[in-house]
């Protein structure tokens, strides 16, 4: 499974757990738009940390960097050794 599909599936799972079954484009805002809450951002942080070895305490945290499937993929590609 490639990176984007993996991230997309994870985000869809979070949205689904919140009863949100609407469309999700890769560039759609999920946090700043209010579709997901702060506690869901925590889930994304843990997912990125545990799956891709990224330490937000070192790279700096900003919700914009995990605000869409595209943003998360960009962050992972820029800061990890993911291939």
């Amino acid at each position: 499974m490639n990176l984007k599909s993996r991230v997309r599936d994870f985000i869809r799972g979070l949205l689904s757990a919140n009863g949100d079954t609407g469309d999700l484009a890769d560039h759609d805002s999920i946090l700043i738009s209010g579709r997901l809450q702060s506690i869901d951002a925590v889930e994304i942080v843990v997912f990125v940390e545990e799956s891709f070895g990224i330490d937000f305490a070192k790279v700096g945290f900003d919700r914009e960097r995990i605000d869409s499937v595209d943003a998360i993929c960009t962050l992972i590609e820029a800061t990890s050794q993911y291939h």
Partner: protein
Amino acid sequence: MGIVVPDIETGSKKNGSGAASGFRIIPRIEAHAGIVTFVQRPLGKALLLAAFALLLRFFVPDLGVERSVMLPIALITFFPEYRRFILAVVPIVLVFHVAADSLALGASLSVLTTAMILYAAVMKWPDSGFARRPVATLLFGFTALTVVACVAPLHSLYYRVLWTLVGTWASYLWFVCYALTDRSSMPKRDLTLELATLRPLWNSTFTPFPKGAAYLRRIEAQTPQELAVTQLKGLKLLVWAMMLAIFEQWWFRLFHGYLRIPSTVEALTMSMHGTPAPLLVRWESQALFFFELTLNFAVIGHQIIALCRMAGFNALRNSCRPLSSTTISEFFNRFYFYFKELLVDLFFYPTFLRYFKRHRRLRTFFATFVAIVFGSSFFHLARDWQFIQRDGLWKSLIGYQVLFFQNVILATAVGLSQLRKRGPKASSIFRRRVLQPAGVLFFYCVLGVFGDESRLYTLGVHLKYLASLFFIRL
């Protein structure tokens, strides 16, 4: 199969249960293409501004004050390309406009200048210790300033200057915190919006609505159509705020005027003096306190966000259907969104990203606890700095015991609520729509026993009063 109803306020797209879920008291005028097109024309803009100004009179009786708000909004509406510049000028003008005397003016200008210098320092040296922990450093600085003010000789010039500085910093503190945490956001070095958010046009409370410049950049209307839609949503929200405010007035007349139900402080005082109100009245008083607080926060928050939207920022509402919350943490999120966001951004994430990384549940709980117990307590102590000036540091900390206890209970409850594994939503509509919200509201209603901000009574008195609500004599 349910229909998909996009929720314009929360942004979520949930399965609705039919036509009823699409019902709205105020119609979705921003979704009507003809209206949106009309509002982009000069006549439409003028009519929209006139309607908004007329409604605003309900909340702002002073014509001069209203003019000082509506004039920049009118300029932004007709010249949106100068929005950031206009908003950046407002805080400086307001400083001169609202300063009571030359000392207050000097304090405000010094705080604004210091904030800009700190912002520049954070941007220039992003890897320095200060830039990596700007909130902790700023809060430490504010605490040090307060301690120094506490030991200044009474009624001396130092005393006056220091306490004026404390008061001024208290009102700017969280706005500056947001500006300094912009270090990690993109794009950087946008001084106009940073300045605009230090004392925003929409007259925020001590809590920054809607957060800082980084957030504003993301929700700013970029096209005439987006501006029209955002402003129409602002108008709608102000209408809703007015309806709630009228309802609130009638509510007060009915329950406190006609039915003479005492406030919680009055009920507490009656119990203290050995003449307690009947149990039913005490419970009524408690329920009213909770409901009135929720209503009041909604009215105030809607006014501020309505103004913010008129300035071209599509901000989420501060309160969004809190009474329908099915968990304690959901209510906390829906009741006072921007205060919760302040705690999350400035306390929760910095703690969560640093501590207990290998213990996931403990990590979440600890960060929640720090955010609510330390963050909220610091916020309220700084907001109520006059208590410190009047009673001294130690006595005011002691006086805060009841609210501190409330924060501990709230933090524990929200922390545990967040840790509960979220499964599929309850299938029974009665359970989801009635039982779960009722349980959440009951918790917050009881917690309200410790929400008395008068600081007249000790924690023991409040605990005794709480026990009496459940037939227990202490």
